[in-house]
């Protein structure tokens, strides 16, 4: 589970009314709700997609961590798991899908291919060498393909990041990697 404890988030008062009144910061409440229902986009590209499916299916069951409903459309999703090799032919589509997602949005680069090009880095003339060349990535999950546990860990990191968001400060927490291509 996430390292943020809910007790810390919702502080009760010492008055006799403590069971009925909760005092918290709006930031924390909003972030808590947001990180407890992350909606990833169904975005399988290659081998890693199969492991992403396994993460969502019976044994690993991503629903336990508040991230169940894989959405088919980017407009309903707030997490993009880029699972699989991105080719040059596919790259403009990935960019467009990312642009269609509403803010705040997060990206997990799943697998060696999306992290850096993976086994295709040297001779793969048609392979994009890392998806961070076209969209900003929040969490990198290496592996070829990564185990479902690794993807879950990636999700926890995203949830931690969500918990650090500030409502008034609209810029995102943490430094986003500089885009190589605008």
């Amino acid at each position, binding site marked *: 589970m996430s390292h943020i404890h809910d007790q810390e988030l919702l502080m009760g008062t010492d008055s006799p009314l403590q069971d009925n009144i909760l005092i918290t910061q709006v930031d924390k409440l909003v972030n808590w709700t947001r990180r407890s229902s992350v909606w990833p986009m169904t975005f399988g590209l*290659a081998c890693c997609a199969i492991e992403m499916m396994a993460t969502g299916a*019976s044994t690993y069951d991503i629903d336990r961590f508040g991230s169940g409903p894989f959405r088919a459309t980017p407009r309903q999703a707030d997490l993009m798991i880029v699972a699989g090799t991105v*080719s040059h032919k596919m790259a403009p589509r990935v960019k467009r899908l990312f642009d269609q997602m509403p803010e705040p949005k997060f990206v997990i680069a799943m697998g060696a291919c999306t992290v850096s090009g993976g086994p295709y880095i040297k*001779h793969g003339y048609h392979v994009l060498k890392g998806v961070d060349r076209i969209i900003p990535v929040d969490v990198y999950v290496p592996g070829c393909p990564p185990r479902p546990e690794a993807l879950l860990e990636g999700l926890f990191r995203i949830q931690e990041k969500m918990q650090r968001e500030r409502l008034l400060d609209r810029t995102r927490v943490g430094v986003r990697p500089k885009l190589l291509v605008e």
Partner: protein
Amino acid sequence: MSSEATSTAALAPGGADLRTEEMLLNMGPQHPATHGVLRVMVRTDGEMVLDCEPHVGYLHRCFEKHCENVTTLQAVLYTDRLDYLTAMGNNWGFCMAVEKLYGPELVIPERAQYIRVICQELNRIASHLLAIGTYGMDVGAITPFLYCFREREKILTIFEHICGQRLNYNYIRPGGVAYDVDDAMLALIGDFCSYFLPKIDEYDDLLSGNDIFVKRTANVGVLSAKLAIDYGCTGPVLRGSGVPRDLRKDKPYGIYERFEFDVPVGSGEHGTVGDCFDRYMVRVREMRESTRIVRQALKSIPGGEIRSAKIKAKIRPPKGEAFTRIENSRGDLGFYVVSDGKEVLYRVKCRAPSFHNISVLPEISRGSMLADLIAIIGSLDIVLGEVDR
């Protein structure tokens, strides 16, 4: 004619009264039902598919170029990522082509042959489980997907014990296999077979006998045997059309001639021969046959070496050209290998079954409803990794 009958005729699909403006619809490359990054351009009239054209290449990973640049042993790694649901079969297909270059003097040790068969058939089951599960999901049933993954995880655990990977095994190498399998593992595989057979009945209850599922798939996307052969379709797609072609029977490679199994074919039990239901049912029945083969192999697996001593660590295939095919879970997977005696092969061409199977899509989807197009694509069970290579 009563007025009621007239209105029914007007509502029939394709009725002249319902003709509307034609529309070009772009499906994919990001679409939950295209099993990856397939893009289909559909020309529709209302909900009818007038024509469609698959666009592939969104996952072109330059497999053949890699084989010309890395050593033969390293190339096995890239074959994993072709049909990533049946990586064992890909390894085997490629290794078989390389082994053929060595000529008949190269004898693969018995134990390795048996391990190859066991792994390949288990992998076939895992692949069909995913095909069936996602096919259920395509036509609106989510439960079978979860059931299928439950069993699939068990197979993946077995593979993980054998070779350390869940998906891309890199296990079958030229001359044998990479590591030996211990007796405890073989016992575990035996247990899995006993556990798995009753589960197939469960799928039959959930999907094959499900009225909604049958209505969604029967008489949809009928592929005639002649058309299937013309388009080079193989595997469950061809067998679903009633053609009993299986390389394990016709041209037994490895040690397949020693095993007893049947080749299931489509019989049109709920509709026409060659419809989506037949293709689906062939896969379900093949899982039973695969379990049968695994059980026979477990009974007679001998001890001994697992790699031929003739193939050294530095693999330099002799000069020559070879073309071999194996029966992978999606059809005939072939490799055309050209070697000029160096450590790096001169040219490798992969004959991918999905490449042929998806090319038949326009022929069988013309005139169907748009929703049926999803059922048809799902029943072809393509893996884009090997379509685009």
